[in-house]
């Protein structure tokens, strides 16, 4: 087995036993990137020298007998909406094609403290808007399970890199399912933490009230390790919660006795592929056999979630993306004769179709005439959805659903049908609306051999219990270590 095929915790143990070196691991990754990247195309930018120099520091410290953090020497990649000082951060947009941030995002800083080598920046749907990574202004990433298929999105590059073994782990961001959906499509683990658990500082905003950064990993243990590294309050992001630090690996026990698992009937509806529903139900049966208690629950306002999401997220994005005006940085149309034309042309040429569609939608729902009927109504729906969950979590400890209505679809299949694409967010957006933690863990394959993701949602800051449940799913279905 080559080094790139291992999980982070395996490599950590090998480094501690001096069975390998950080430089060897990084070189194995860079070699793997060279071999397979032309087909997968997960990376927008690679940073081999940054990775090598970090690996050398790790080896030096290890040689001196220092005790190092869990992720020391474990190479990773970042979604290209996370600011990296001196390394271009494009958000897969022509608008930021040549934008080099002068500061680091908090999540990258925390991974640097872990001494995790940065391999590069990963492809995504432009400004995190999309579910297939086909909205990247540069190129489409392939699903390593089937190169003709999409990896999902918007963190498609982050999921594909983990599945292809071109990163041991990656970070993605999730506003309506953008970590979980690609994780499901690529057969890896993807965790969206509770809103406020992980700092958003330096992560280019899409919808500020829902954006959250989380790990994409080969197994649940790695997800817990990466969460340990990035979670925690940040003085630069005042929406982060002040809470005591937890070791999330402590929750990983193969024991679900007495755990109450809620199955919401609204998530097993028509439109969700029966094969997926069956696979989820079978897994739930296995959990029940292992001692979990299964409870039928209802989240009655689920059917309004997607509509409300597609009002709130565009509204916030229309404001967040207004700063890209060509004045200070980013793409500027050079031909405009005056400032207003410069705005129009820079934004018209710099943004792709989906981004423009959402900016228009968001600008409209915030306008004086539409605000009450759309934006205010959507906020009310959001409150109802949050209340649904609060009531549900009186009856259960975690909620299990499919992550996606379908498995990975063909490239180009839905690219001209935005509504069909929006439907892939059907099962994932409610967790963002309510700010709750949710994880997608592989639980099997469909007949075409494509991975199926099982979503586990928990109450606010209930990362421990969803990780434990995911860990048990992994044990029962033997899907861990996706990249083989």
């Amino acid at each position, binding site marked *: 087995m080559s080094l790139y095929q291992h999980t982070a915790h395996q490599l950590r143990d090998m480094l501690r036993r001096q069975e390998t070196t950080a430089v060897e691991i990084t070189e194995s990754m860079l070699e793997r990137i060279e071999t397979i990247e032309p087909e997968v195309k997960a990376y927008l930018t690679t940073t081999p020298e940054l990775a090598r120099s970090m690996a050398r520091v790790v080896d030096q410290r290890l040689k001196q007998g220092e005790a190092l953090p869990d992720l020391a020497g474990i190479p990773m990649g970042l979604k290209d*909406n*996370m*600011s990296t000082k001196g390394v271009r*951060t494009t*958000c897969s947009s022509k608008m*930021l094609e040549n*934008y080099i*941030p*002068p*500061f680091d*995002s908090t999540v990258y800083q925390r991974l640097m403290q872990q001494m995790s080598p940065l391999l590069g920046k990963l492809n995504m749907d432009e400004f995190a808007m999309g579910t297939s990574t086909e909205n990247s202004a540069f190129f489409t990433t392939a699903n390593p399970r089937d190169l003709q298929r999409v990896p999902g999105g918007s963190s498609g590059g982050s999921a594909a890199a983990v599945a292809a073994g071109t990163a041991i782990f990656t970070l993605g961001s999730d506003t309506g399912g953008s970590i979980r959906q690609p994780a499901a499509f690529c057969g890896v683990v993807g965790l969206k933490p509770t809103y406020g658990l992980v700092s*958003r*500082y*330096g*992560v*280019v*905003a899409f*919808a*500020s*009230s829902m954006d959250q950064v989380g790990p994409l990993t080969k197994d649940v243990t790695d997800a817990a390790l990466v969460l340990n590294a990035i979670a925690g309050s940040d*003085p*630069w*992001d*005042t*929406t982060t919660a002040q809470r005591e630090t937890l070791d999330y690996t402590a929750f990983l026990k193969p024991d679900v006795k007495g755990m109450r698992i809620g199955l919401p009937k609204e998530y097993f509806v028509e439109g969700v592929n029966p094969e997926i529903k069956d696979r989820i139900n079978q897994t739930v049966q296995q959990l029940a056999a292992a001692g979990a208690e299964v409870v039928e629950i209802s989240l009655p306002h689920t059917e309004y979630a997607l509509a409300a999401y597609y009002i709130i997220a565009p*509204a*916030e994005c*229309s*404001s967040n993306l*207004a*700063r*890209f*005006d060509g*004045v*200070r*940085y980013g793409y500027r149309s050079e031909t405009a004769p005056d*400032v207003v034309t410069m*705005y129009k042309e820079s934004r018209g040429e710099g943004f792709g179709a989906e981004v423009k569609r959402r900016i228009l939608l968001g*600008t409209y729902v*915030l*306008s*004086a005439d539409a*605000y009450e009927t759309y*934006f205010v109504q959507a906020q009310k729906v959001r409150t109802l959805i949050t209340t649904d969950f609060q009531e549900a979590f009186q009856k259960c400890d975690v909620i299990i659903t499919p992550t996606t209505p379908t498995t990975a679809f063909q490239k180009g299949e839905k690219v001209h049908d935005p509504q069909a694409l929006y439907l892939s967010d059907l099962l994932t957006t409610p967790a963002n609306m309510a700010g709750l933690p949710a994880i997608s863990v592989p639980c099997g394959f469909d007949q075409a051999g494509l991975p199926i993701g099982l979503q586990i949602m928990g109450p606010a800051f209930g990362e421990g219990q969803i990780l434990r449940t995911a860990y048990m799913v992994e044990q029962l279905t033997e899907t861990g270590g996706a990249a083989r």
Partner: protein
Amino acid sequence: MSAKYETVIGLEVHAELRTKSKLFCSCSTKFGSEPNTQVCPICLGLPGTLPVLNKQAVEYAVEAGLALNCTIQKYSKFDRKNYFYPDLPKAFQNSQFDLPVALAGKVKIHVNGEDKELGITRIHLEEEAGKSVHSGDNILGSDYSSEDYNRGGIPLIEIVSEPDMRSPEEAYAYLVALKSILEYTEVSDCKMEEGSLRCDANVSLRPVGAEKFGTKVELKNLNSFRAVQKALEYEVQRQAQLLDAGETIIQETRHWDENTGKTHSMRSKEEAEDYRYFPEPDLGPLVIEQGWIDQIAARIPELPESKRRRFISEYGLPEYDADLISSSRKMAEFFEATVALFPDAKMVSNWLMGEFSRLLNVSGKELDQAAVTPELLAKLLQMLAKGTISGTVAKSVFEEVFATGKDPEAIVQEKGLAQISDTAELERIVQAIIAANPGSVTDFRNGKDKALGFLVGQVMKETKGRANPQLVNELLRKYLA
């Protein structure tokens, strides 16, 4: 203006808060630095940055609210005001829309001997934009513009008044009262010339006795309190003429042109922007506990209105003096410190409003930049009161004390400026002056009293102002009799 219409005026005052750092980042708020040297990723709105609210700015806003008798809101929030302009790096301004930090205040003004209470609708916190520097004289005549973001993100409060003012004069008095309160509490520098205090005015007319407000016009580019008053006076006349001619007023924003003394239309209501306000998702609600409000309230100093009343009752100052002296905290404190050493309050107030204010104006200094202290002024006034020096000498000595901070007694001694009250010496001089001005002597003897003044003046000239004027008078009368 004709007695047919009643004027209705409301003002929106923007005051930059005196914090050391900006509203959402740690950049300096210092005025006048090289362009774009006080900026960081946050106030430049670089992608991914987030605001961190400046606690001091909140305290100043609360303090201003309390000093203006507002109710502080325990729960307020920030909203985004969205619009495109090159000086606005995020393309939205963080402001407070429907839940501002303070509501329902009042301010007292005194106009033409009458007291009036004016309402304040609200005070909200927001951030400054940067500054566009146009290559030409104005934006239209420019080939290009540069942006200076040093000012971007400086905290300010917007104080919105009720439409309670009934004349441009009242508007002026309101601004003076407001500025005075903001200076007393030290929440703002209130420097209009540096833009740290700005004002927009809303004005409408209605038939006398009518309840319904007329159509209002908003005036912009008012760069001084006098400009506010002049622009309002012009606008009141313009509107009255239109109404007299049977025309209607258009709701619009008008630009005041200081050079022509006229207002001209900038944009109509239909052209007004839709700011698409919505709650700022990057900042939680602003929750202000009662305990915090109490702490802030405890450090509010005695305010001008109370000082004014006390100066009248405690020191017997005339209203005019009390108004003027109390309008500046530094002046009021200087006054009281001087009176503590030299109890003739009226004399102290005369000197502060007269010589002292004149020298401040001439030198362009702030009160605390002048070298003179209450101790030095009190010493000088004592010498004057005792007759050690004459009024004329006192003025020239004060000029030196003002500039150098030197002890007035030392100045008087060094320069030999003490008043000549020595009768023998004065007699000699008086006789010489009488001998040298026979014409005036004849005039006086023919009943022209004015001639005496001339002769006194000649004696004073001869003695360089040091002669005791009373004594000179007596002696002249004696020898002319």
